[in-house]
């Protein structure tokens, strides 16, 4: 199954994997994706393409994935439950598979209220766990959600999901991961890790359930670009945990914007080095949306290059 996924190959070989993230443009210009893809191509095994993240209209994740593949980079296509019902999702996934998409990240999606069309309907016909289950059944049992057989080629995806170790209730978070794994998740990308201690506690709960042996866990990281951004993530993004010492470290950087950015990269590299040591962490997911150029530097400093 899904033998052709490069990401799966890297993970299965036991090498520490690197994924990155690319936000498609808010226009119809494929060049934007090509340019960003070039920045990322030598430093990641696969790159996530977001599906209208934060509910803002952007180029479709599947279309963007195709452009990315033309650049020789493997996409992890994101699919959310916010904008499509089960008919549309299954249809889009048949199309994505036909176009060569191999990795699929199943998400519930940010609520439409966060985005630029807050008056729209939120579909949420299913949630991320049910989405995983549906796609796994399409692949393994060759059936549509309704039970009807898929005659002919079934979509064959390496299935991923997200996990947030920092959301509440904390005691339930590893159990929720267990549900995702049971539903079909083969790899997991976590919410951004700044609070390494809490992440390690979550990983312990994950190991106690044996989940690290049933899926590959990639720790999410991002370099804080400015003090303002770090504060914003701390105070305004639900489900994010940015300890004060991270902000203090940025403040300690010399005044110029460049110094802060450099320190942001250093912080990210330090976090990668720490999570790498945690048993069961199979890789990192470096998210630097609108700062894609930072990723090669981070990967280099963290000793993650060259990629296999």
């Amino acid at each position, binding site marked *: 199954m899904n033998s052709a996924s490069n990401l799966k190959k890297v993970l299965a070989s036991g090498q520490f994997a690197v994924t990155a993230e690319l936000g498609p443009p808010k226009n119809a210009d494929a060049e934007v994706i090509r340019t960003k893809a070039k920045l990322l191509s030598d430093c990641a095994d696969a790159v996530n393409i977001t599906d209208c993240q934060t509910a803002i209209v952007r180029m479709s994740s599947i279309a963007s994935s195709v452009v990315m593949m033309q650049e020789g980079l493997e996409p992890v296509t994101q699919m959310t439950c916010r904008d499509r019902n089960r008919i549309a999702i299954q249809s889009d996934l048949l199309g994505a598979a036909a176009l060569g998409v191999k990795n699929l990240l199943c998400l519930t999606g940010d609520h439409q209220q966060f985005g630029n069309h807050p008056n729209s309907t939120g579909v949420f016909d299913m949630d991320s766990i049910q989405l995983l289950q549906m796609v796994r059944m399409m692949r393994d049992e060759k059936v549509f959600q309704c039970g009807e057989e898929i005659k002919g080629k079934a979509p064959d995806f390496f299935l991923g999901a997200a996990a947030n170790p920092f959301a*509440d209730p904390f005691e339930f978070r590893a159990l929720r991961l267990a549900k995702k794994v049971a539903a079909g998740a083969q790899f997991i990308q976590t919410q951004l890790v700044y609070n390494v201690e809490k992440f390690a506690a979550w990983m312990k709960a994950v190991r106690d359930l044996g989940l690290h042996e049933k899926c590959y866990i990639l720790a999410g990281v991002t370099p804080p670009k400015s003090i303002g951004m770090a504060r914003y993530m701390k105070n305004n993004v639900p489900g994010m945990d940015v300890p004060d010492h991270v902000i203090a470290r940025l403040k300690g950087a010399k005044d110029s914007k460049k110094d802060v950015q450099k320190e942001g990269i250093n912080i990210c590299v330090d976090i990668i080095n720490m999570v790498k040591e945690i048993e069961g962490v199979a890789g990192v997911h470096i998210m630097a949306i609108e700062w894609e150029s930072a990723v090669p530097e981070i990967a280099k400093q963290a000793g993650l290059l060259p990629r296999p």
Partner: protein
Amino acid sequence: MIVGQRKPIQEIIGMLKGIKNILILGCGGCATVCSAGGEKEVEILASIIRIDRKKKGGPVETKEKTLARQCDTEYLEELKDEVDKYDAVLSMACGVGVNFLADMYPKTIILPALNTSFMGVSEEQGVWSERCAGCGNCVLDKTGGLCPVARCSKHLLNGPCGGSQNGRCEINPDIACVWQLIYDRLKGLNQLEKLQEIFPMKDWSSSLHGGPRKIVREDLTL
């Protein structure tokens, strides 16, 4: 109960343009209980409309009346002999009452004075909140009696999502995350294992997505 709220007055005045003789019709059911469209609110609305018309030099005749309910033929029939006298009936019932009036009196203009909001409870004086979305396929046995369909912003069945923090929903800190509440309740009831099962995809055909709904009970029909 069904909870509603009176529409902004300018919107009501706008829809009454050119209408000279109005029946303002209250409802003695939910609309009264939630202080949106009972006798008292009918009286207030009628006087606002009259004052407005007087200021604008376009007098209006308003008749005020409140039925026990507007969702039963029995009560709506009380209007049978007078409804033709009015240019329009402005209903202060929920949307159900407005619809039923329109169904029954095809030749009369029927207008809504309320925005019907949700099925909910009166939490405290002046505060109402939603509890059930009438999905037609109740799951509360599995969720500790708390509804994820009506009370989770993404109606997740395998929540809580990654945005749940400090018991609050990611979309608005004024909204409780019902999945945190479900977790706490099941924990208190020693039923946390219920959350480990994967909740299958819901059949939404019994909710609005299956088209307008109807119940026929043979045991009760005449």
